[in-house]
């Protein structure tokens, strides 16, 4: 005996004590799928027969069942289910999770149960008799109570031969991979539909009267209709005939729209208000033969309310569908599919106000729908509405999947006057409402899926630490498409007197199997990410910003680099002109760019830091040490033995001067942009592409052209390419670093020349820094080079820093890739926010 059970359902076993429910469950279902009341009684009371614990046991059982159903897992409840109110709770639970309730009844002969009972539990005979009574009274009501399937096993043979057959949900067509052409609301516009199908490449089949009765695509594409084929338009029967033919031939799928739903009820003779173009359908169908009407009625009646397609990547429903409802079946899921979610309010035209579910949509599947006429289609959080109001004189639109191309044909005329005007092209304000970020996009313990490292975990406390900075200080998240990752230093130097030295940087890449590296000068200013648009129009269109800005310049934590927006715009303007002159817009086929850069001098951003921290240390040291030397020298003159002490203070006095000189090199006066230098060292992204993983030869060649275009502002990044397997090349690289740092340079960054590289242990560090001996005085203090200090400072642990650098790098690439691919704002912000959250992890900031 085969028992059909939907793949996702809540199964109630029904039967008296001793009817063999648990045995049946264990034979047909996985142990984890079965929730038994006995087990839960034992869990809450230590006694599976303690009837006083029943209420608590079921509380816990339903809680667990709810978790399983939320996660989309088949769940079997092993309890007697003899009382109507017990079953009602179970049915309510199924409905609350939009899954189908199923009953499997074990109605075995009395003697079988009694025998098992005496062997097992020993309930009094009158209890069993009462149970049998209750079961008998229950049996015929099960269907009516709401169980979608009721299987009754009445003999031991039935039970022994039972076989569970799992049924896929009607909406589950994930095995179909298309490619698809998803077509918006047709509303009886048969002629436009024929034109659209033809322009999509379909060949129409016509009957003897020349009527289109089917269509097929030579490349085997499948059309998917989002519903509302009928009403309002001039030829509802013609549209039905064509689509019915296609669906029957397997060249199309169709979901039900609300108009089909109402038309069926009208055709079935039910009382409906004839409005919104229903009259036209009824009149047109009246002219068709009875068989056609019957076939059309049956066709529409058989339409499911949504489909999951293409491995679950695509969901089609007439009015859209929120993620919790994907693949579910219930009255309210169907209602959502047909009508959307209404707020209960009505608008000034008396039409229901729809809840903007798409604004909150965070699902991975793309949802394609119709229902609400719009004058232009636009992706909102991975959803798109294809109803472009053909019947109202708009267009009929198709979405090619997986290409994501839109194809549309204009209406031949206004077939039907709209009650309210078509929504104008989405205003910027609406767009911004649609991509409003939600607190659950960033808070809590989260993982972000990255292309190169897989799932990157963000701890809850780190996310919490970042929220304040992000919400109080960061610029508009629309501009914030990237935050720079941190960078690890090279391993601690083995060379005497050094904390960092190129030898270790080269050796590390050699060990990773990376042979060619580029050594880039590390500019000593403040990190600045530059987002640049050709004009404000691009900024509005591509970044969704609502003001007159044409870009942004921001710091490592997403704050605006300059307090004065006008100064930012002046800088952007200079860079824009350099990009113009360098011809990069056309060459990269983009009208916006994201650059990673250092903005110099350091004193522009760090002025306060210098005056409050660096300069005072220098001032104090320079004042006190000569005084100490003088005191000690006078003591020495008196014959007191202070030779060692005075030598040390003389040394420290020199360090104080060196420290002062070290930070002083990175300070010079600026007046607005005069004196400001921008040193871009990486092109991060442009239209349709993240450049962040491209090789540094490509990067630097383009950046050199920017430098050439505005030498006063844009500073070149000097570099040398080193083959780490070649001793001479390594020596040349080391000499280059020595010269650079001797001349006061901060140091260098060594990167795999290829940009992105994998080595023996996975992704290789995208760069390691190797800082100069003098520069490190402003990190580790004036006296760090003293052997006694240096030897202790060398005890530093780089492991966490390296791990952090890689994770942030992965997140940075991810946010750029997502932005370049035009993904929803929340997806970009999620990755950007994660970088900031990771940066609040406690790792030695000197590394």
């Amino acid at each position, binding site marked *: 005996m085969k028992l059909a059970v939907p793949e996702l359902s809540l199964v109630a076993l029904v039967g008296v004590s001793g009817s063999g429910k648990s045995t049946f469950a264990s034979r047909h279902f996985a142990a984890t799928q079965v929730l038994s009341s006995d087990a839960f009684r034992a869990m809450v009371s230590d006694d599976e027969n303690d009837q006083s614990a029943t209420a608590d046991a079921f509380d816990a059982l339903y809680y667990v069942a709810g978790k399983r159903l939320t996660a989309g897992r088949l769940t079997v409840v092993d309890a007697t289910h003899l009382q109507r109110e017990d079953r009602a709770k179970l049915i309510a639970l199924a409905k609350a999770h939009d899954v189908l309730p199923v009953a499997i009844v074990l109605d075995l002969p009395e003697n079988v149960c009694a025998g098992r009972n005496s062997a097992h539990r020993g309930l009094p005979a009158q209890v069993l008799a009462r149970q049998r009574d209750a079961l008998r009274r229950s049996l015929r009501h099960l269907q009516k109570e709401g169980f979608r399937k009721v299987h009754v096993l009445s003999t031991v043979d039935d039970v022994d031969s039972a076989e569970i057959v799992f049924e896929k949900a009607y909406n589950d067509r994930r095995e179909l991979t298309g490619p698809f052409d998803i077509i918006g609301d047709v509303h009886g516009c048969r002629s436009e539909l024929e034109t659209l199908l033809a322009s999509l490449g379909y060949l129409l089949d016509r009957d003897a009267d020349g009527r289109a009765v089917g269509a097929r695509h030579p490349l085997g594409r499948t059309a998917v209709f989002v519903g509302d084929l009928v009403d309002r338009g001039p030829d509802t029967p013609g549209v039905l005939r064509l689509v019915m033919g296609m669906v029957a031939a397997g060249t199309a799928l169709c979901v039900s729209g609300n108009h089909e739903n109402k038309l069926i009820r009208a055709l079935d003779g039910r009382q409906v208000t004839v409005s919104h173009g229903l009259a036209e359908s009824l009149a047109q169908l009246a002219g068709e033969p009875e068989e056609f009407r019957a076939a059309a009625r049956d066709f529409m009646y058989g339409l499911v309310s949504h489909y999951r397609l293409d491995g679950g990547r695509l969901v089609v429903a007439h009015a859209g569908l929120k993620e919790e409802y994907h693949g579910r079946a219930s009255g309210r899921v169907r209602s959502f599919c047909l009508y959307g979610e209404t707020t209960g*309010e*009505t*608008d000034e035209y008396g039409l229901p106000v729809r809840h903007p579910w798409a604004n*909150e949509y965070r699902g991975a599947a793309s949802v394609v729908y119709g229902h609400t006429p719009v004058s232009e289609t636009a992706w909102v959080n991975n959803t798109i509405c294809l109803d472009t109001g053909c019947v109202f004189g708009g267009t009929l639109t198709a979405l090619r999947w997986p290409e994501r191309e839109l194809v549309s044909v204009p209406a031949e005329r206004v077939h039907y006057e709209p009650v309210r005007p078509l929504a104008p092209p989405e205003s910027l304000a609406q767009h*911004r409402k649609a991509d*409003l*970020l*939600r*607190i*659950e*996009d*960033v808070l809590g313990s989260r993982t972000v899926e990255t292309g190169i490292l897989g799932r990157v975990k963000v701890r809850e406390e*780190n996310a*919490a*630490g*970042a*929220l304040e*900075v992000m*919400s109080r200080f960061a610029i*508009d998240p629309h501009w914030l498409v990237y935050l720079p990752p941190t960078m690890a230093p090279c391993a601690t130097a083995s060379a005497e007197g050094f904390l960092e030295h190129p030898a270790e940087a080269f050796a590390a890449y050699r060990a990773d199997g990376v042979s060619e590296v580029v050594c880039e000068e590390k500019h000593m200013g*403040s990190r600045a990410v530059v987002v640049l648009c050709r004009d404000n129009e691009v900024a509005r269109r591509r970044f969704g*910003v*609502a*003001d007159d*800005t044409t870009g942004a310049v921001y*710091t*490592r*934590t997403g*704050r605006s680099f300059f307090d004065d927006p006008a100064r930012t715009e002046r800088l952007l303007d200079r860079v824009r002109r350099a990009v113009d002159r360098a011809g990069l817009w056309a060459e990269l086929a983009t009208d916006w760019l994201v650059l990673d850069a250092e903005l110099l001098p*350091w004193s522009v951003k760090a002025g306060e830091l210098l005056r409050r921290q660096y*300069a*005072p240390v*220098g001032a*104090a*040291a320079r*004042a*006190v040490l000569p*005084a*100490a030397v003088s*005191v*000690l*020298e*006078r*003591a020495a003159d008196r014959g*007191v033995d202070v030779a060692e*002490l005075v030598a040390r203070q003389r040394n420290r006095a020199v360090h104080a001067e060196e420290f*002062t000189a070290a930070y*002083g090199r990175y*300070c010079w*006066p600026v007046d607005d942009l005069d004196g400001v230098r921008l040193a871009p060292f990486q092109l991060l992204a442009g239209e349709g592409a993240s450049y962040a993983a491209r090789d540094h030869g490509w990067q630097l060649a383009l950046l050199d052209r920017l430098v050439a275009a505005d030498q006063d502002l844009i500073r070149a990044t000097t570099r040398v390419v080193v083959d780490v397997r070649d001793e001479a090349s390594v020596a040349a690289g080391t000499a280059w670093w020595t010269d650079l740092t001797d001349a006061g340079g901060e140091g260098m960054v060594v990167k795999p020349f290829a940009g992105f590289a994998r080595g023996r242990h996975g992704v290789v560090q995208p760069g390691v820094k190797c800082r100069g001996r003098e520069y490190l005085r402003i990190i580790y*203090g004036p006296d*760090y080079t003293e052997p006694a*200090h240096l030897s*202790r*400072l060398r005890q530093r642990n780089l492991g966490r820093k390296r791990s952090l650098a890689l994770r942030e790098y992965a997140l940075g690439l991810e946010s750029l890739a997502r932005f370049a691919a035009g993904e929803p704002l929340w997806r970009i912000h999620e990755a950007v926010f994660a970088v*900031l959250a990771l*940066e*609040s992890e*406690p790792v*030695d900031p000197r590394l």
Partner: protein
Amino acid sequence: MLLTVTTTHRPATDLGYLLHKHPDRAQRFDVTTGVAHVVYPEAAEDRCTAALLLEVDPIELVRGRRGSAAEGFSLGQYVNDRPYVASSLLAVALGKVFGSALKGRCEARQELAATPIPLEIHLPVLPCRGGSPLAERLFGPLGWSVTARPIPLDPAFPDWGDSHYLDLRLAGTLRLADALTQLYVLLPVLDDAKHYWVSVDEVDKLIRAGGDWLGAHPDRELITTRYLAHQRRFAEEALSRLTELDDRPAEAPESASAGHDAADDRLPSLADQRRAAILAELRACDARRVVDLGCGEGNLLRALLTDQFVTEIVGVDAAPRTLAVAASRLRLEQLPERQRDRITLLHGSATYADSRLTGYDAVVLSEVVEHVDPPRLPDLASAVFGAARPRTVIVTTPNVEYNVRWPTLPSGATRHPDHRFEWTRTEFADWAEQVCAAHGYAARIEPVGPVDPEVGAPTQLAVFSRESAVTR
């Protein structure tokens, strides 16, 4: 760091007895933060100078720390003036190295120890929050003639001005013990920072050290306050780390008292009036379940808690630290259960839509919008009026026109350093109108505080009511 003590009392070399340190030997003493040395650059009959030189171990200073900051996660720790200046580290070394002298004990010259003698003190680098006037104020009344020269920050950058260090010379006739205890107490006071955690026994130390002279000092209040009240909250680590990434000085985030009501201290009742106005509006629209979005340290929450009219209160703030302060100020842990159940604190932000905030009668944004950058205001409006969408939204914000009525507020300055803008009455009304049009609300704006015929009231309050039937 360096301190020299000179006397011209004859025989000046008696200084060696008073200090218990022989003038002809270099002596070293291990102290917790490094090594202290005592040497005499001069020791003659007519003039004798002892120098205390403290070599601070900068690595140990960072790595040897205990407690939350032990690992040294602040970038500034190695670039630190402590190894060079006369701070509490020197005071501690003074106490240890010259302990007997500090107590005025000297077996060999007890009478001299009890006698005022001519003394000169030199501190080449004294950190002094308050500059030379403060040094004068604190040492002058004790009988010192004070010569204080500010030390420039960096001669290469003259426009950076002077540092907060003084080259300080004191001259006077005092008992040596008094001179030393004065330094012991006043070095940390002038520096206004201490290297160790202030605890209760500090009070005893202060009384012991300052007993003889502190009671009569005209600035004793300042001295005790600064000496004892340095329980500066440690900056929340995460925040200071992120601040440093931006090349900003790491410091304690804006302190509690500098919250958005601080500026109103000029007019102490304004914050109260604002809260009263908000409560009255909430009653008027029968709002019993209320969200205080941007609750800060909970001043409004406390007012809401005491009003039984309000049945459910949610306080939201972006800073976990601030929420913790709010929880402790409201004594949430000690509230009776029924009171406790009325209030929830949530970590959140006004610029993110938050489903936890839907379904309430009212959302209050009291002195919040002016802390949000203008480009993010549309997001705030969408999150509050679009997503949370309560029946009533109450917004209060300063009326910038009124600022001219505050003589202490410099022209053009905002009332709080974090205010991104302050609106005129027209600007506020324009914003309210835009919000209403975009989200289907109607607004009414009321003045809060004394209404000036010309410039209006100091605070403006808007009540937004959701238009129930019509939504755009």
